[in-house]
C-alpha cells in the first residue's frame, strides 16, 4: 500500500557528519586508518593462523626431522625492547602533536627517536636472519625455519614502511595535515603489537 505515510518527514540530524573543518578531517582519517589497520591486522592474523595450523598438526615442534632452531635470545629480546621503545617515542610524538603550541616542538624530536629505534630494530632483525644462516638454518631447512623467515621478513617490510612514513613526516616542509601524524602513530603501534604477538607465539611458545 503506497501512501504518504511511506514518506518520513524531513529530519536533518543535528551535527551531521559532513561539516568540514579540522576536527572533521581528523575524524575522517581516524575512520579510514581504522579500516586500513584492520585489513593489515587481518593479513598478520591469517599468517599466524597458518602458523597455528601447521604447528598444531605437527607431532612435535620443530617437526620430526628438523633440527631445533638457535633461540638467539639476545637478538630477540633486543628487537622486542626496540619495538616497544619505538612505539613509546611515537606515543610522545602523538601527544605533542595533539596538544599543539608549546609542546609541538618536541614532536620532531620524538619522531626522530622513534625512527632511530625503528632502524635499529630492522638491523637486529637482519642480524638475526644472518645468524640463522650462519648456523646452517635456511628458509628451506624445514617448516619451523620457514615460519621464522617468512614472519620476520614480512613483518620487517611493515616496520620499514613505518620508518619511511615517519621520515616523510620529518621531511615535510609544511606542518602535517590534521590526523596524519596520528595515522602514522597508529600504524607504528600496530607493527609493534604484531611483533609482540610473533615474539610470544613463535619464539617463546
Amino acid at each position, binding site marked *: 500500500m503506497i501512501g504518504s505515510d511511506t514518506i518520513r518527514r524531513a529530519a536533518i540530524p543535528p551535527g551531521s557528519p559532513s561539516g568540514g573543518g579540522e576536527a572533521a578531517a581528523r575524524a575522517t582519517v581516524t575512520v579510514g586508518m581504522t579500516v586500513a589497520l584492520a585489513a593489515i591486522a587481518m593479513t598478520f592474523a591469517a599468517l599466524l593462523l597458518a602458523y597455528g595450523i601447521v604447528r598444531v598438526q605437527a607431532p612435535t615442534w620443530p617437526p620430526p626431522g628438523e633440527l631445533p632452531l638457535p633461540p638467539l635470545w639476545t637478538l630477540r629480546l633486543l628487537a622486542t625492547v626496540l619495538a616497544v621503545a619505538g612505539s613509546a617515542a611515537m606515543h610522545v610524538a602523538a601527544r605533542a602533536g595533539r596538544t599543539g603550541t608549546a609542546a609541538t616542538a618536541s614532536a620532531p624530536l620524538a619522531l626522530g627517536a622513534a625512527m632511530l629505534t625503528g632502524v635499529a630494530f630492522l638491523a637486529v632483525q637482519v642480524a638475526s636472519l644472518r645468524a640463522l644462516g650462519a648456523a646452517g638454518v635456511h628458509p628451506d631447512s624445514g617448516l619451523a625455519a620457514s615460519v621464522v623467515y617468512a614472519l620476520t621478513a614480512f613483518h620487517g617490510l611493515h616496520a620499514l614502511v613505518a620508518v619511511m612514513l615517519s621520515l616523510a613526516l620529518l621531511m615535510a616542509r609544511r606542518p602535517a*595535515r590534521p590526523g596524519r601524524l596520528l595515522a602514522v602513530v597508529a600504524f607504528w603501534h600496530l607493527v609493534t603489537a604484531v611483533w609482540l604477538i610473533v615474539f610470544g607465539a613463535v619464539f617463546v611458545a
Partner: protein
Amino acid sequence: MDACTVSEEHQRPTDPAHPAPEPPASFWRQVVFSTDHKVIGRQFLWLGLVFLAVAGTLAMLIRWQLAHPGAPVPLVGGLLFPASGGVVSPAAYTALFTMHGTIMIFFALTPILIGGFGNFCLPLLIGARDMAFPVLNMLSFWTMFAATAILTASFFTPLGPPAAGWTSYPTLSTAVGAPGVAQTLWVLAIYLNGASSVMGAVNYITTVIRFRAPGMTFFRMPLTVWGLWLASILNALFVPVLAAGAVLLFFDRVFGTRFFIAGSAIKPGGDPVLYQHLFWIFGHPEVYILILPAWGIAGDLLSFFSRKPAYGYKVTVGALIAIVVLSGVVYGHHMFVTGMSPLLGEGFMVLTMLISVPSVILGVGWLGTVWRGSIRLTTPMLFALGLVTVFGLGGFTGLFLADVLADVYLHDTFFVVGHFHLTMSAAVLLGAFAAIYFWFPKMFGRMMNEPLGKLHFALTLVTVIVTFGLQLVLGYAGMQRRLVDPSAYAFLRPLMPLNRVVSQAAFVMGAAQVLFVVNFFYSLRWGPRAPANPWQVGTLEWTVSSPPPHHNFAEIPRVFVGPHELGNPAVKAARGVDFQPQDQEPPA
C-alpha cells in the same frame, strides 16, 4: 599530496568563502592521474571492459576445445597456438581456464562493479563531492593497473602462462608443480589486485560513514550504496587473508620455504591443504563481494522501474547484513572432500544452508517490489529481472553443493561450474550490464540505444541459461571439470552432443556481446543527449546534470526522504510527477 589527503574541505557547505573547488587544468591531472571519483570510476570501467573481452575470448577457446577436442581452432588457431598447428594442447587448455577464471573474477567483474560503479556512484548517491581520500583512490586505480600489467606479462613467459587454476592450489602452484616465472607473476598480480581492493574499501567505508549529506541517514541510502558498502567491509576483512596465502606461496616459490610442500620421509615439510584454508576463508566472502553490489543495484532498479517503493527495504538491508555475517563462517563447504572431520563438515553444511534464509528474504523483497507495479521494461530493468532469474536458478543448485553427501559426488564436476557461473558470474555480469545501461547517461551524458539493448538482453539471457543450465546437467551426469578432452573417456563420450550444444550457446552469447560493444561506442559518440533525469527517479545523482559537474553538487544537498519514493499519490497531486527527489521536501 599523500594518501592521507582528505577531501573534507570539499564537503563543507557552500558559502561565498568556500565555493566548490575548480577542476584541475592540466591534461595529466584531469584525465590520467585524476583524483576525481567520476574519472577514476570510468578508468576502472574501461579497464574492466577490456579484460571482460579478453576473458570472454578465453572462454570461447575453452568451449571450442570441449565441443571439438583436437580440432584446430578456426581463424585464430594458427596465430594463438602455432606450435600445435592451431590445436589447443593440454598445457594451453589448463592455461586457458586458469586465466579465464583469474581475469573474470579479479580483473573484469571486480573492476567494473566495485571499481567502476562503486567509484562513480557512491559519492553521487550519498550527496558527497568526492571520496574521503581522493589521492588514495587514484593510487587504488594505478595499483590495479600495475597488477593487470603484471598478469598480462605472465602470458608471454618462456614456460607459458599460469596454469594452476584460478584457485592456484598447491601442489600445482608450487615451484615443483609450476616451474617458471609465470605463476610467481600471478601471485604478485593477485597481491597487488588485493592491495587495490583494500585501498578502495578504505575509501568506500570511510566515505559512507563520514560523507553522507545532511539527512542522508543509513536507512535513506539507496540499496546500491548498501551493497557496495557491505562488499567493501568484506573486502577489507577477507582480501588480506588471500594476501597472506599469496605471501606464503610467494615465499615457497621464491625463497624455498616449505609451507605448502608436503613433507616426505627424507625432507620435512608443510601442508598443501593449508593454502586451501587461506584461499577459501577469502574465497567464499569473495563471491558475496561480487554479488552484493549487483543485488543492491537490482533492488534499486526493480523499485525504480516498477514505480513503487522497494518492498521491505529495511528487511532487505537486514538480509544483506545477515548474508555478510554468514559469508565469513561457511568457507569449509569448499573443502568437503579434503578429508575434514565429518562433524566439522556437518557444521559448515548447516551454516551454509542457513544462507538460504536471508537469500529467500531478498527474493521475496524483489518479487514484492515488482508485484502490481507499473512496470517499465527498459533495458536496465530487463537486466535486473534477468539477474534475479539467473541468480535464483543458480542459488537453488547451491543447496545440493552445500550438502556434504551430494557434494562428494558433485564436487569437481561441471555441476559446480554451472552453479558458480549462474550465481557469481552470469548474475554479476547481468548486474554489471544493468548498471551500465542505467548509469551510462549519467556517466557519459548520452543515452544508449534501447532496441539494441533489449536484443542484447534477450540473446544474453537465453544463452546464459542454456550454457550454464546444461553445464549443471553435464556435471550431474558425471563430467569432471578441467578435462582437456572428455571424449577420451568412454563413459563421457555420450555427453559430447550436449557439450556441443553448450558450446554453441556460448558462441551465440559471445557474438551477442558485439551488439553491446556497438551500442556502447555508437552511443558514446552519437547517442541522443541525456537529460538530467531520463529515468524519472529521485536519487541524488539524477538531481544534477548528465554528466555531473566537477565536484558534483554546487551545494551539498539536504536529504528529506528515502531513495524509493515512487508512485505516491500526494506527490503526484502536488507536482504532477510520480517520483519524489530525495533532496526536495515532500508535500505536506
